[in-house]
């Protein structure tokens, strides 16, 4: 119409953003799925600090065991005595931890059985222990004994990098 009327042809000034949206959507889905996967295996725990810890090069055949301090029982007891005051347990060391594998709670007594089954499924399995730094050793010891019973030789303790002050 513009050509017939002797006017200069009009160009479409809109930028085609469809490929951009496609890429961005793919990235969002990627980040969302990655976030979910990491959340399932790794519980939020304050792990100990160490100087000689290293990153694991091989990302295959890993089994995370999380020992998460269980505050619920103590908090419930405190709520009974004084429901208006929420107290943090004075000594969280005395708390029994929750053992979590693949995001699910596992009973301490059933650990050797569960680990044996995992080892049977994957003989090259490497065990990654993630335990709260303030937990008593009495809660870590049964786990190490269970690993020995399940014939798991490759054990790794999750730590944070300790910054040297020297």
């Amino acid at each position, binding site marked *: 119409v513009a050509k017939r009327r002797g006017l200069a042809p009009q160009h479409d000034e809109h930028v085609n953003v469809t490929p951009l949206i496609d890429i961005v959507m793919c990235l969002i889905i990627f980040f969302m799925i990655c976030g979910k996967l990491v959340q399932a295996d790794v519980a939020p725990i304050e792990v100990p600090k160490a100087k000689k810890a290293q990153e694991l090069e091989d990302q295959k055949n890993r089994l995370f065991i999380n020992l998460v301090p269980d505050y619920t029982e103590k908090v419930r007891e405190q709520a009974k005595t004084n429901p208006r005051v929420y107290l943090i347990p004075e000594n969280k060391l005395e708390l029994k931890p929750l053992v979590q594998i693949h995001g699910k709670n596992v009973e301490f007594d059933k650990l050797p059985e569960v680990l044996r089954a995992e080892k049977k499924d994957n003989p090259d399995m490497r065990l990654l222990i993630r335990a709260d730094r303030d937990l008593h050793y009495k809660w870590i*010891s049964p786990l190490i004994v269970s690993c020995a019973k399940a014939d798991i*030789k490759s054990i790794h303790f999750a730590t944070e990098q300790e910054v040297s002050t020297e």
Partner: protein
Amino acid sequence: MTPMVDIVMCILIFFMLSMTFAKTELFLTSNTPQTKGPGTTQVQEIPRRLMVEMKQVLRDGARQTFVKPESQAEWLPADQARLIFAQLRAGGLSDDVMVILSPQSDVPYNDVINAYDACIEAKFRNVAFSPA
């Protein structure tokens, strides 16, 4: 279209930043003695063992962990573990000595890992844990 692109970009930036702030976790690898091969239970010959006891002591209202290698008479603070194990190695203890960390049940996991880290730093090749 522009508002949608704005929102999508905000969501993308949020996810990218939240992924960046996740802490990088490192691992201390166990170096307990390995069996000779599949199906065998025989542990390789260990020439010598060094038992290291660990306990908690209430001092000045605060709990503190102490360590005592069997070769020494006195209990020493666990925060000096690096120095203690380095001195043991400097004193002629060979790196193939099997160090057995024996913490009491109430010793915090953090102190056990610190002692284990100190053993690795002192280049002890065989470190084991005894049950609580």
